[in-house]
């Protein structure tokens, strides 16, 4: 499938799960998604996001975000996210890292909810109408515990080192990508390359693989995480990220960055 065909399967209003910055972010697909004009997206950051969320929010393609944090890391605050929160143009559903992971695991298991320790006394909990606090039914004394409803994204979108001809995808130890794929209704993956070995038949590769049963579409996108990194392959482009952070401080600077990186069609 081409990159254009892959992003065309993402629809208006879809809940799209995307990984944290160093696990394999599908940035080339994100640029193609911007070209496709798809809007009304609801983003689920697993459990955080940075450049990808900021660009989609800045371009006005996002109505709601669920995340433990949106940040550019060492490059600072995510400027378009910060501006959108001030303007009130997106709805933010604040979460916490273990809650995102646990709620996806509940979806993996097909159970309606999952209990999680901690969080009691946090305003993250106070602001979540969809989370509940119940007494631990197995405790002898008082033991309130948070219950989280299962999270089932419409789409999981990420970038991985390689896929094989059968549609198996190798993600190495970034197992949250497997959890995302297990939990989501559709999983869209871009890869550096397609290889001629069977990634699941090889016992040394299989533990890092996601079997094709979970994968809906694959497109090849060399350096597809750029300017973010892909572990074991290339590091994040720190200079480019700093350039983005500076440019996106203003609406005009962001638009210029978008024109340069997206509208032109080719990036490098």
């Amino acid at each position, binding site marked *: 499938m081409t990159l254009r065909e892959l992003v065309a399967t993402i629809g208006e209003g879809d809940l799209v799960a995307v990984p944290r910055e160093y696990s394999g972010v599908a940035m080339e697909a994100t640029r193609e998604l911007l070209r496709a004009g798809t809007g009304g997206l609801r983003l689920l950051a697993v459990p955080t996001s940075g450049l990808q969320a900021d660009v989609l929010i800045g371009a006005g393609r996002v109505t709601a975000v669920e995340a433990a944090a949106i940040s550019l890391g060492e490059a600072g605050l995510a400027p378009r996210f910060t501006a959108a929160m*001030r303007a009130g143009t997106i709805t933010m559903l604040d979460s916490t890292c*273990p809650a995102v992971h646990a709620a996806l695991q509940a979806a993996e298991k097909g159970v309606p909810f999952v209990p999680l320790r*901690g969080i009691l006394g946090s305003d993250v909990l106070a602001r979540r109408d969809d989370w509940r606090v119940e007494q631990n039914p197995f405790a002898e004394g008082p033991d309130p515990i948070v219950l989280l409803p299962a999270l089932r994204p419409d789409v999981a979108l990420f970038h991985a080192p390689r896929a094989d001809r059968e549609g198996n995808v190798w993600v190495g130890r970034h*197992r949250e990508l497997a*959890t995302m794929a297990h939990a989501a209704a559709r999983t869209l993956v871009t890869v550096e390359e397609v290889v001629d070995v069977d990634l699941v038949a090889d016992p040394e590769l299989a533990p890092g693989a996601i079997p094709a049963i979970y994968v809906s579409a694959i497109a090849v996108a060399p350096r597809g995480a750029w300017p973010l990194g892909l572990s074991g392959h290339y590091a994040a482009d720190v200079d480019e990220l700093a350039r983005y952070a500076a440019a996106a401080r203003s609406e005009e600077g962001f638009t210029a960055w978008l024109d340069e990186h997206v509208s032109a069609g080719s990036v490098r």
Partner: protein
Amino acid sequence: MTGTDAARREAMIAAVVRRLEGCRTVAVGASSPMPAAASLLARARWDTRVLMLGNDRLDRFTEGGRELFDLAAQGRIDAFFLSGGQIDGAGNVNLLGVGDLPGDGQRFPGSFGSPYLAMLVPRLILFREEHSLRTLPERVDAISAPGTSPPGVYRRGGPVALITGRAVFAFDPARARFTLESVNPGETARGVRAATGFSYDEASDVPISPPLEEADRARLRGQVADDLDPVYPRFARALRAAS
């Protein structure tokens, strides 16, 4: 980077290192270069195991992003570090934001794992380089991680200290209150009081925060800077530049 900045940074790192003595395993989360450096010094000194998110060699997880949190819930992580847009006098951390949103408020990145780890890791070390009335108010505008919890709420630990660019505070969970332990080089107890928005206790004579030992300073410029480079290239550069 001035000499004062380097001395202040090293005093902060030294204060963190002292608090890690006796820890078998410490974890370092996002946006935590200073605690990461201190943790690597603890590893050199006491063979402390360091789990550092986002670093290919020091991120020792094979079960994905959830593994750190599962480890913490099992009681396998002894210390963790948290910063925040605001940290208040009761040890509450705010990573959510201040003021009215939408409106003229300021949105922070979000709470990361703080609402969870603050309650499940025994030794929580709070840090914030900027020590000002803005960052250290009497009360946070919103609570990401509560400093203390009422009886009956499952909690394995909480804040033990707050380390800033100006000073080191110890935290007493029974009273939900800080005590000024030392001031960093170039600071005075009176100056710290004027720059702090929350009330705290203070002995009549407050010492200067002890500096790092020479061996640790050499490690910072060498192995520690190399280990931090993949995640915190700018911080690593600053460590190497300090003489």
